[in-house]
């Protein structure tokens, strides 16, 4: 495909190369996510201690979500400052909501 676009400017080639490098990162990210998922399921199958498994599971999930948001959804790119503000605003509210519904509802 790249050969056909002979009239492309240097800028375009540069951007394209950059995207290609990034795409490699994405694939690595994906492999890591798969590994994390397998680890998560394996921990359950291995029937390890609850107190150990639950925090690790949540950490693994958080890292996976970080990968999704920063790499797959490109939040690491420029121009995502306000999206990040509003997204983390949502995460903050989400945290408060879940905290309240798990900690303050017990009867």
């Amino acid at each position, binding site marked *: 495909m790249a050969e056909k676009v002979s009239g492309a400017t240097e800028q375009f080639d540069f951007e394209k190369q950059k995207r290609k490098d990034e795409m490699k990162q994405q694939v690595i990210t994906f492999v890591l996510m798969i590994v994390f998922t397998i680890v998560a399921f394996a921990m359950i199958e291995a029937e390890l201690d609850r107190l150990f498994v639950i925090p690790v599971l949540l950490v693994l999930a958080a890292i996976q979500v970080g990968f999704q948001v920063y790499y797959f959804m490109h939040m690491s790119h420029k121009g995502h400052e*306000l999206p990040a503000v*509003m997204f983390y605003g949502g995460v*903050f*509210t989400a945290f*408060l*909501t879940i905290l*309240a519904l798990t900690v303050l*509802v017990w*009867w």
Partner: protein
Amino acid sequence: MSTMVATNKKGLGATLWDYLTTVDHKKIAIMYLIAGGFFFIIGGLEALAIRWQLVQPMNDFVSSGFYNELITMHGTTMIFLAAMPLIFAFMNAVVPLQIGARDVAFPFLNSLGFWLFLFGGIMLNVGWFTGGAADAGWTAYAPLSTTSIGEGVDYYVLGLQISGAGTLIGGINFLVTIVNMRAPGMTYMRMPLFTWTAFVASALILFAFPALTVGLFLMMFDRLFGAGFFDPAMGGNSVIWQHLFWIFGHPEVYILALPGFGIFSEIISTFSKKRLFGYTAMVFATVLIGFLGFMVWAHHMFTVGMGPAANSIFAVATMAIAVPTGIKIFNWLFTLWGGSIQINTPMLWALGFIPTFTLGGMTGVMVAAASADFQYHDTYFVVAHFHYVIVGGVVFALFAGTHYWWPKMFGTVLDDKLGKLTFWLFFIGFHLTFFIQHFLGLMGMPRRYWVYMENQGLDLGNMISTIGAFLMGLGTIVLLINIIKTSVKNEKVSGDPWDARTLEWAIPSPPPFYNFKQLPLVRGLDPLWVEKTEGRKGMTPAEPLTDIHMPNNSFLPFVMSLGLFIAGFGFIYQKHDLSWLIVLFIGMGITLGCMLVRSVKDDLGYHVHKEDLKKEAEE
């Protein structure tokens, strides 16, 4: 071109069609104003009925069941169908003009948001005609709401769900508008305070309304589809509703109050002929109130039994909000100090607001003390408190904004004498109604009771309260007369009748549909005032005269909302008879079909050509 035809010589049908399909933020603002004003009057009539029932001990003006419907619908109508849309009316009318934009970021969604609100509002009120409106209080606590007989609460759930979707859409729209559409030079720290408060309020809408959405879904599943979220017999827990409702409900207070603060900031600055004192601190306080507003919801639930630790945390967080609010109060006072103050109707409302809202804030700190709240909870003390906050902070602001921005929206100035009469009637009436209720509450009168006994010291207080309520009604009637009188007289005014400071006054009243012929260059806070102090008449343009891109009108938002309205009936009545599911599918089909049409049909808008702009300028 055809697009340049002005709207003033159209027939009724064409005008109606124009408003049904419009995506112009100024026309949507007018529709919000009319619809919100209509619901304000409905809610007001409900309030008068409540007060008339309580005018004497053991009154039998309305039945107990009907009284429950009245208090429920009064609260719901006033918050969701009057205050919210009226705030949106001013946000629509003013924010794009204040930041120097030609329209909002999503004109189509703007129109969709309005129609969703309107159909949701109608849905809520349909209950009156089908055997009783919602009667579980505006907070709709389970299990009262989940066991309420009839369809009233179903209409509440579906109506709020539909109008809530509209509000969420509106909130996102204003966030993006303010982020992306500011004129050259309009930095964040040059935005007028009303725009800032609209921005923070929109962010609060974005984060608060989803909790309500979920709460309403759960309620719907419980009531209509046999789920057991709030039903202890199935292992459910009714406190979940309370949390979800207040996670939304408390930020909602600030969603309403912050734009109110913004309106007063504009008015006080304009009529003191001074730049707003402590602008930076005001912005900071606005953001801080928005942030803290999310961490205090459980102060509505002190008596639920969350335990002393949780109660203390929420009590302290609540009291902390008094600090940024205090900063604002002092900044308004310092803006007034040494200004060349002009007292007219908007300014009167602003001056009346400061002590009124401060009183509401004081009682707010009182009820925030968790241990003391066990005494105040569910008494008229709380009723008095939140009316001081919501009426003093929001309704006063809406009256003030109506008088202040009327010329910008309609090109005429409301009569000042009648305006002042409205203010004094409403202001005196308000304090008569609610000040005495503090004491009624302290004497132990519980809220939401439809009668009280004789000779318990409550008779006189209630009588006074009712008289006050009717004075407020009178004040509103005077405003309506004023509007009719002004519209009939139809004396057009200039673009800047108040000698004001912000961008919206730099263009004609009412503005042309494209707002700014050339986008203005903003060179400081209060951009118009900056130009005036340097001897210029208007803004310096930031661009040459070019073609202006405008969005197309569309009928889809109306149909889309109508589809959900129809589906709502299907959702409700399938609980009696499953054949109503057909109605549900038809309604959802209409809505989803419209979404598909919107998705596949390109809507590229049109251009106003610069030749036409020039021609228009010569005329």
